[in-house]
């Protein structure tokens, strides 16, 4: 029973610890755990310290929103499309968002909100397009897969053409491509968090329906689950949550693919369990990766995808090797 409880408590506790670390660690070395404690017990601290703490809090919150959204979106899509290779970017929202951003930089419009709006618009337009085409083409699981893949390629193809024309402005778009939460402002975080939260709430409401997909389309439909509708809705919600965080922090990779795997490995097949578990795992991995992103090539901020990948991949392989005998992958 103790071990069982630990299994359930571990992820949220880890997330809390990671978040605490994330607020305590940063390049501005005069603000650390002691100053944080001072602030929390109501001691006076210099206003600069306070602002730095706020900045780190924003960034940590962004990492959590990012991790939760990507992991939930990934889990939902992997379940509804019954394919473990599916990641949150399946619908092409990352390519759409990147196209938006690149286009704005190309046009010389680099206001924060302009870039953000362009990324969001690019993602959502792509999503709408893919959903419409998939539905026209019958709405089966593989239709979504194929249309999404086609859209991703098409839009990144177009983006490449633009990038070529960016010339020396390329690095601005490029770093955006690698993803980071270092440049998220409270203003943007609010907007993205709101969209993501609404989408995730939708996914959560659908969770019990999505869970029936493990019985096969036929049985799920017989239970009164409108399989095509739930699939299309999950696709829309997962992709709009993804869009929201992509617009905020760029397309951070690996989290959305791997968190559902880890959650499934630890908590079984139930989507109603896997969804929150994946979200917590995703958030923890992202917060930890973001801490590493600040430190690993200090003083430079490492791209978040680079960190999630470099640290996440060995973890994944380790778990894979460990579970070898159990044959449950």
């Amino acid at each position, binding site marked *: 029973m103790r071990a069982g409880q630990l299994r359930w408590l571990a992820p949220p506790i880890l997330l809390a610890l990671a978040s605490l670390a994330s607020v305590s660690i940063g390049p501005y070395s005069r603000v650390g755990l002691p100053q944080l404690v001072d602030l929390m017990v109501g001691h006076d601290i210099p206003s600069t310290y306070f602002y730095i703490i706020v900045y780190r809090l924003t960034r940590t919150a962004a990492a959590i929103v990012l991790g939760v959204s990507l992991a939930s979106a990934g889990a939902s899509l992997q379940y509804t499309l*019954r394919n473990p290779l599916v990641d949150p970017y399946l619908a092409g929202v990352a390519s759409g968002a990147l196209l938006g951003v690149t286009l704005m930089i190309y046009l010389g419009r680099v206001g924060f909100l302009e870039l953000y709006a362009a990324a969001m618009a690019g993602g959502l337009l792509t999503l709408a397009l893919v959903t419409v085409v998939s539905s026209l083409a019958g709405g089966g699981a593989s239709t979504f897969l194929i249309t999404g893949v086609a859209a991703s390629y098409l839009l990144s193809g177009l983006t490449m053409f633009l990038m070529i024309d960016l010339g020396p402005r390329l690095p601005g778009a490029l770093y955006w491509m690698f993803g980071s939460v270092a440049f998220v402002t409270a203003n943007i975080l609010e907007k993205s968090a709101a969209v993501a939260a609404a989408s995730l709430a939708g996914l959560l409401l659908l969770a*019990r*329906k999505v*869970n*029936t997909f*493990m*019985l*096969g*389309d*036929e*049985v799920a*439909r*017989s*239970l*009164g*689950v409108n399989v095509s509708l739930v699939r299309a809705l999950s696709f829309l919600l997962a992709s709009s949550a993804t869009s929201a965080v992509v617009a905020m922090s760029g397309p951070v990779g690996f989290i959305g693919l791997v968190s559902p795997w880890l959650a*499934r490995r630890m908590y*079984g*097949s*139930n989507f*109603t369990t896997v969804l929150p578990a994946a979200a917590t795992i995703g958030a923890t991995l992202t917060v930890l990766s973001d801490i590493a992103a600040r430190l690993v090539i200090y003083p430079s901020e490492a791209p978040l995808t680079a960190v999630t990948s470099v640290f996440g991949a060995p973890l994944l392989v380790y778990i894979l090797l460990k579970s070898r005998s159990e044959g*449950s992958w």
Partner: protein
Amino acid sequence: MVSVAVKNLSYEVNGVHILNDISFTHSSGLLMIIGPNGAGKTTLLRALAGLVKFRGSVELDGVRPEEYRRYISYVPAQPSLDLMARGLDVALAMNYRPPDGLWRERFLEVLGRFGLGGLANRPVISMSSGEQRLLLLAAALSRDPRLLILDEPTAFLDVTNRTKVIELLQELAGDGVSVVVATHDIEYTAVADNVAVLKSGRLVSFGPPREALSEELLSDVYGISIRRVDRNTPSYMPELLLKRFSK
């Protein structure tokens, strides 16, 4: 007591007629659908479960299947379960909109009847063919359905479990659940309240087994001579097989 009323049901795909103008009313109890391979049994069950678009009408307790799904449990002949899911996962998924908190008890109780309580915590992939079928049956029953639609529920089952399943279905029918079953085990038709006989997508006979079935009809439908094995038990067997046995 859910009545199943089918009127002028037809279904075709790519110009092939799979079901042809089928009409019958099953007012309560156990309905067994028999007929040769490819006769359209599965298609008919899927129509009853609201899984295909057909011409004509199907009314379950007076409403269309789509509106009645809440109360239907359907188990296909070859379900495509997630092989990593554990027994309880499957039952929970079936009860995605639980009518009450008792689904787990019901699930475990049915499993227990077959001595398979252990399946609850094992992944589907580790279960034998028969165990998988019984798991799904238990999960379907845990929903406490008013209408139970089973496609070949006795396939892959041993005689004991087949018997237990038939017993269970009779019990359910007795408790007011309507049960519609497609099967090739014609010897079990004796226990049905109604039998529907399909041949090439047409309904060739319908009614209580003693009225609806006869050696002649079955021989005609299955295309080989079929005889009652024993006048004391209304069981049927192909004559060819009978000859072979007595050689």
